[in-house]
């Protein structure tokens, strides 16, 4: 089992997983299977599955009546969409201007040393490291996002503690 799907013991999560195809179908039908809704549909697909597999893209292309190459073209244009499985935890370091001048590179260095290079996932599938261009928390620079939560005024020390806490070697 690949680690990209966040395993959870909650029965609800399991039910969601089994119904993913149905949820995706519902999202497409809400948009009347219109090709204009491609980006919304890709957002939904990624939310449900964690990343976009070729099979998913093929299904979406067929249902929205779009050429496959166009679907892939759109999915690869936007940095939000991922064609590869993501780690159990995700760290996004802001490399926007405010964070950059306040030492964001030091944070990225910690992650790259302990987990994975930016844009990739650690070999054990535990942590995905990414960078962003301003997450809009410049008042709290340097800032980062861990699993969707903004961490402000970070330091390499705080980050190291955080990594220890989730059990990164």
């Amino acid at each position, binding site marked *: 089992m690949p680690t990209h799907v966040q395993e959870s013991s909650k029965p609800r999560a399991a039910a969601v997983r089994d119904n993913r195809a149905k949820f995706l179908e519902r999202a497409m039908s809400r948009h009347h299977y*219109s090709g*204009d809704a491609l980006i919304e549909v890709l957002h939904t697909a990624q939310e449900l599955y964690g990343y976009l597999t070729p099979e998913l893209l093929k299904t979406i292309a067929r249902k929205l009546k779009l050429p496959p190459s166009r679907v892939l073209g759109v999915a690869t244009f*936007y940095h939000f969409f991922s064609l590869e499985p993501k780690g159990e935890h995700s760290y996004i370091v802001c490399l926007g*201007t405010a964070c950059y001048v306040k030492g964001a590179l030091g944070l990225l260095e910690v992650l790259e040393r302990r987990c994975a290079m930016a844009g990739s996932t650690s070999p054990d599938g535990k942590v995905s490291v990414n960078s962003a261009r*301003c997450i809009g*928390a*410049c008042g709290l620079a340097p800032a980062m996002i861990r699993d969707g*939560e903004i961490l402000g005024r970070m330091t390499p020390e705080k980050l190291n503690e955080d990594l220890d806490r989730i059990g990164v070697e």
Partner: protein
Amino acid sequence: MTIEELYETQSAELDRRKRLENRIYCCTAAGCISCGAESVKKAIADQIRSSGREGKLEVCGSGCLGLCSRGPLVYSERDNELYGEVAPEDAPALISSNPVDREQLRFKRADLEAPFFAKQHRIVLANSGRVDPENVTDYIAAGGYQALAKALTEMTPAEVIAEIRTSGLRGRGGAGYPTGLKWELVARQPTDTKYVVCNADEGDPGAFMDRSVLEGDPHRVLEGMAIAAYAVGAQQGFIYVRGEYGLAIQRLQSAIRQAEREHLLGNRILETGFQFRIDLRIGAGAFVCGEETALIASIEGKRGQPRQRPPYPPESGLWGKPTLINNVETFANVARIIERGGEWFASIGTEHSKGTKVFALAGRIQNTGLIEVEMGTPLREIIFDIGGGVPRGGKFKAVQTGGPSGGCIPEELLDTPVDYESLAAVGSIMGSGGMIVMDETSDMVDVARFFMEFCMDESCGKCIPCRAGTVQMHDILARLTRGEGTPADIDMLEQLSSLLKEASLCGLGQSAPNPVLTTLKYFRHEYEAKLKEPAGAGAGDSAAAAGGEER
């Protein structure tokens, strides 16, 4: 609701508040949430409940209170006090009716008379921190949707446009195009189907004004859009929000739902014949989608690549129909202009730049946060009086405005007033309002390299000057920062700058050289100090030697 009900709701809510002893506002903008605002708010709510004074005291969330560097922030209405760095343990003292208890918090009090607050002029942010963004009644109590009611019942679309023209409002998304003129262009189109789009893609690194407005006062933007729709004759609107702005998206969704339920949006707005629906479109991580033609492509489900203008969106935009695109802050000014009149707005600011501008202060500055000042305020006043200068005795070196399309302004030009023309004259732009302060630890060549890297990564790849030119410029700047550059490199940097400026397809490439050009202009000595050999030596033309490969 009808217009009468709108006014009734307002007075009922205001009456209810009169019976309260105090209303406490907890900043629940993304910045404060990330330092624990939610638990502070919960602690206060729990404390009110356990003290059994629910009918007398009330706690609510609020938009950005401005002083982000001291979050979590709490504002107490009764004594008009702002507290910073509030912890859940402070809840009992905060709600206490005994002034002695409240005195315990004196060290956390922010001085509302300090220049940070006193020198601001709030129009766009007037409600921010004073209304609960999750509650439409709060917005109505603050006079919300009355401007829409006025426009729908007392004004013709042409009069609305005339009022906006009188106000002198210009686009806050960067270029500063006169808003009234743009509305008129769309209104003039004979087609039935038209669209109104709010550009909330705020991609400039170092800018978070639009996010704060959306998080703190979403209805103000919805009301502005509805007034615009009435003026230009549109029935469908879209808000294109950056995917990174999770909280803003959530707040907008709930605001749209509430407004529809109250008939402030939708099919029978205020029971008049006017209809207008707003849908959200979530961006997916591409800076260039802030450019209006790329944004249109993205809403249509395509790769976000800009196209040639003309035709401009007011003639041919979404699905080829006339489309009005304005920035969040532009729309946020509209209701106040309709309410108080164009003349009033035009009396604020400078001759060609009217009103106020919101800036996000960040970088090496004491008071990071969100501020709103009258157009024409000198940079020095913003950075030193309002912003509190560089912290810990550091020395100011430059301020960067306008993000990757803007420029770095040195100390000697700090008396430049902030307005569209003055900033352009010094080689920068107003941009969307990010202001990043750098001190003497910042290496200006590296700053230029940083912005070029941004543009290189964000280039859509359609036109050659931007796609390949940013790569070459970044290459040269990286070489310079490593101390491997030559005078020929600087020369090539200037040639490439001129190419990108004049030949690129869209604003991204056209303005990408600005950070390089301004740093070359004001900090050329820093470039020259990094050369492999002193300037003027001329020999060892390594770029030509290395690049001189035969085809």
